[in-house]
């Protein structure tokens, strides 16, 4: 295989040459390791690549340019809320006072960060209508696990140990059922009604004394607000179960709907979506969890508390025995939370306008596509922050699939939307423009999609052969999975020394 084209790069190991790279740290004294038993020591340093700084820089600068990112163009990846990441926030997180603080620093020298976390908790509680918030979970999925574990602890605390089921509508995000499993529950899938909302009859049928919780992604992965949410919540609570709201799509309802006020018992936030902290090519994020009164005792520790003298402190180990414990080390992904705090304070009450603009942009884009008619729009009613389009008709007519449309968008300079997700819609494209994209961009994207449909009719091979302008063309994913090559050197092929 060849690395072809001036843009692709050799891997770090190919750039290595023994003897290169120096000048970063002083050399240790010869006897530095004399106190360490020799049978604990490596014979030779690990076989890492040896490069000098100029090569490192070129490598990563050139690699970075192979990425499409929010900073380079429109990125309407549905469900992911690829909004702009303010540069102030990057600056703030790097302030030495924040970046250099050790997670076990005694509270008295950590007052700045503790105050920030305390205020952030309060603001998230206000935004969600929840009673209290834990900032510990490292991402949305961990927030979900936290929430479900609290629900479990709640039922147990009441001696209610027979609740083994978690109801999950089929329009829920994949992490919801995966979380239920991880927490030791059985997932019961609930189908959607034709309007995209939960099928209330099916829901009631599934609900019962074995139901521990229901997990509702709201707005759902279809971009739709759950219209019968009041009915569902009442039913859940009547059945003695608790209601979890997957709040990853909160960007759609800021200032319009507070889950806590509406009756949800627990929810998580995705600060890397709603509050604009960077997605980092796959992470990091942070997934704070908000709870109502019921689940308050079970929040993970340590929480951040304010003393009567106005100072802040972390909860001490064992201080709150009802806690479900910890999900990870230390307090949380503080560096991410600093960014979220900055974003929330930059907007303050104007967070409601963020939602207005995000929802307006999504509906406008949906309307532009609906008016054209090349793509199916399965749900006609107003969407929230995102909407589903589908290439079902286009495919029937031309053979061109959603995957092809997506790849062709790359040639137009756009990142494709999320495709084949949600799983419940055939040939789905989940399109989320966010509030930080200009009208010009929305128009250009709609025009591109419409032009691609025209191409599909006139010269489908252009679409199925796309992309042509990207650094690489379509990949052989099958071989990658069949014969995984997951590291630069050949796998050592060592076998597991135990039964599988």
């Amino acid at each position, binding site marked *: *295989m060849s*690395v072809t084209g001036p843009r692709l790069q050799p891997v*770090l190991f190919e750039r290595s040459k023994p003897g290169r790279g120096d000048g*970063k*740290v002083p050399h240790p004294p010869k006897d*530095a*390791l004399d106190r*360490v038993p020799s049978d*604990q020591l490596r014979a030779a*340093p*690990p076989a890492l690549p*040896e490069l000098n700084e100029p090569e*490192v820089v070129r490598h990563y600068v050139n690699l970075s340019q192979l*990425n499409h990112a929010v900073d380079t163009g429109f*990125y309407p990846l549905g469900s992911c809320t*690829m*909004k702009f990441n303010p540069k102030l926030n990057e600056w703030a*997180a790097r*302030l030495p006072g924040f970046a250099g603080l050790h*997670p*076990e620093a005694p509270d008295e*020298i950590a007052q700045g*960060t503790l*105050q920030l976390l305390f205020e952030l908790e309060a*603001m998230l509680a206000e935004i969600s209508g929840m009673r209290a918030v834990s900032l510990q979970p*490292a991402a949305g999925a961990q927030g979900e696990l936290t929430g479900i574990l609290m629900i479990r602890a709640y039922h147990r605390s009441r001696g209610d140990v027979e609740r083994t089921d978690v109801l999950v509508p089929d329009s829920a995000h*994949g992490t919801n059922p*995966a979380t239920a*499993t*991880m927490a*030791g529950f059985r997932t019961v899938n609930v189908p959607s009604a034709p309007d995209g909302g939960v099928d209330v009859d099916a829901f009631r049928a599934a609900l019962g004394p074995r139901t521990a919780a229901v997990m509702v992604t709201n707005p759902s992965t279809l971009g739709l607000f759950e*219209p019968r949410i009041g009915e569902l919540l009442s039913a859940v609570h009547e059945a003695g179960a608790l209601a979890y709201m997957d709040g990853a799509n909160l960007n759609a309802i800021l200032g319009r709907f*507070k889950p806590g006020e509406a009756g949800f018992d627990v929810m998580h936030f995705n600060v890397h979506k709603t509050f604009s902290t960077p997605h980092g*090519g*796959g*992470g*990091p994020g942070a997934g704070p969890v908000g709870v109502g009164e019921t689940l308050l005792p079970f929040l993970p520790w340590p929480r951040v508390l304010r003393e009567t003298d106005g100072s802040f402190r972390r909860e001490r180990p*064992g201080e709150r025995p009802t806690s479900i414990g*910890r999900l990870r*080390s*230390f307090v949380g*992904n503080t560096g991410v939370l600093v960014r979220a705090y900055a974003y929330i304070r930059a*907007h*303050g009450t104007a967070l409601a306008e963020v939602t207005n*603009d995000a929802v*307006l942009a999504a509906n*406008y884009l949906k*309307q532009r596509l609906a008016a054209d008619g090349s793509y199916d729009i399965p749900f006609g009613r107003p969407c929230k922050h995102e909407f589903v389009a589908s290439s079902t008709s286009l495919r029937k007519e031309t053979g061109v699939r959603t995957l092809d449309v997506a790849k062709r968008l790359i040639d137009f300079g756009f*990142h494709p939307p999320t495709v084949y997700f949600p799983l419940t819609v055939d040939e789905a494209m989940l399109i989320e423009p966010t509030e930080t994209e*200009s*009208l010009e961009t929305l128009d250009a994207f709609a025009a591109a999609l419409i032009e691609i449909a025209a191409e599909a009719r006139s010269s489908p091979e252009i679409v199925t052969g796309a992309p042509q302008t*990207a650094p*690489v063309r379509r*990949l052989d994913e099958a071989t990658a*999975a069949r014969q*995984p090559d997951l*590291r630069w050197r050949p796998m050592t092929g*060592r076998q597991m020394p*135990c039964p*599988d």
Partner: protein
Amino acid sequence: MPYGPHTPDDRAQMLAALGISTVDELFADIPRELRASPLNLPPPEPELELSARLSGLARRNRVDMASFLGAGAYRHYTPAVVDQLLLRGEWYTAYTPYQPEVSQGTLQSIYEYESLIAELTGLDVVSASHYDGAAATAEGALMTCRATRRERVLVSRAVHPDYRATIRTYLSVGGLVVDEIPLVADGPAAGTTDLAALQHMLADESEPVAGVVVANPNFLGLLEPMAEVGRLAHAVGALFVSVVEPVSLGVLLPPGGYGADIAAGEGQPLGIPLQYGGPYLGLLASTEALVRQIPGRLVGLTKDLDGRRAFVMTLRAREQDIRREKAASNICTNQALLALAASIYLAAIGPHGLRDVAALGAAHAAALEDALADAGAPRLHPGPYLNEFAIRVPDAAAVHRGLLDRDVLAGLVLAEAEPEDPSLADGLLVCATEVTTKDDIDRFASALRAELRKTDRIPAVPVAGGVAS
């Protein structure tokens, strides 16, 4: 709107296209009685003022002390190149590389990360990545149960207490059992995992063990007999999870070198700022045999239609967005940017640099040991360590507080971290790294001397003085 582009005209144009007069109509589907009360938040804050607020908060933290605090998160020198490359928007404003054609930068960087950590751990399969060391270790423990179809995991008490708590949280729920392996109480091996107890626990056939989790260096800084632990575990068909600190792998034997099946650990020391606990980087690696059990992202090498080398996410049928309730884990967003930071760090510092970092830490720790012993605080355990160790200080919490006032952050008060272990009641856990200076050590030693003098805290049994190098 600080970051929004829409002018009133733009909004009017969009509303007109939708045939509605106000944006409120788009929210008509929210049941009236469930609509939100007004947002009680502060007004929007212009950047000028917000930046001052943020600097003000940051300044309220004190990060300028002579610090000897490690205990799972370590101060290191990060070459300036690391953050400057990381700050490129092409990295941090992208997401999961679902579309490989426009994500080769991220994908290749992940493949390289996998390769680098594979070299460092001596294992073949590296997941990229997990939330932190604790969550990665818990995932590693879960892997042992899935792979062996057994339900009991043994965890050394010398694994970081937060990790043990996390393992309990992750495992307890599925009815899995977590038992702790005690530590040797005294003698030359004091403070390390009790191998006799481990052997005894493993022997219980009624509750077969899926995995054994031991850290090296352990929470107390001590080096563990890892090869022996591995042999004992494998003898009864259990898997061996090694919890590692990656900088130490610049000089210590790698997990693959002593038979570990899984390595887990905290990647923060590889160029990631302390930032009060995160975002950090959960390292998780395994033998090739466990490839289908490992949770999290995997990137593999393949080629494109024209035969160009290219990278792609692979073996995705383990992930939640495809398998939903049957996934290997619910992990979705991971710590990719931190994996990138670790890769850039390793590329910038190189294998010899990493060795030097580890060895300098050891050298500084040795000097620290001598200086503190001389000042009246000898080590708590006799066994070998790399760059972190516990010292015995009467009334440790009070002395620690006193030292703070003298601008010394004297490590961790062990009684607060491990309140149930009486042998640690007088302990401070202290560490040195390549950034520890002689001045810092001198300041610590003399401040400690002064603190010990303050009350009659000098231990009854005089310690051997004068061995300072």
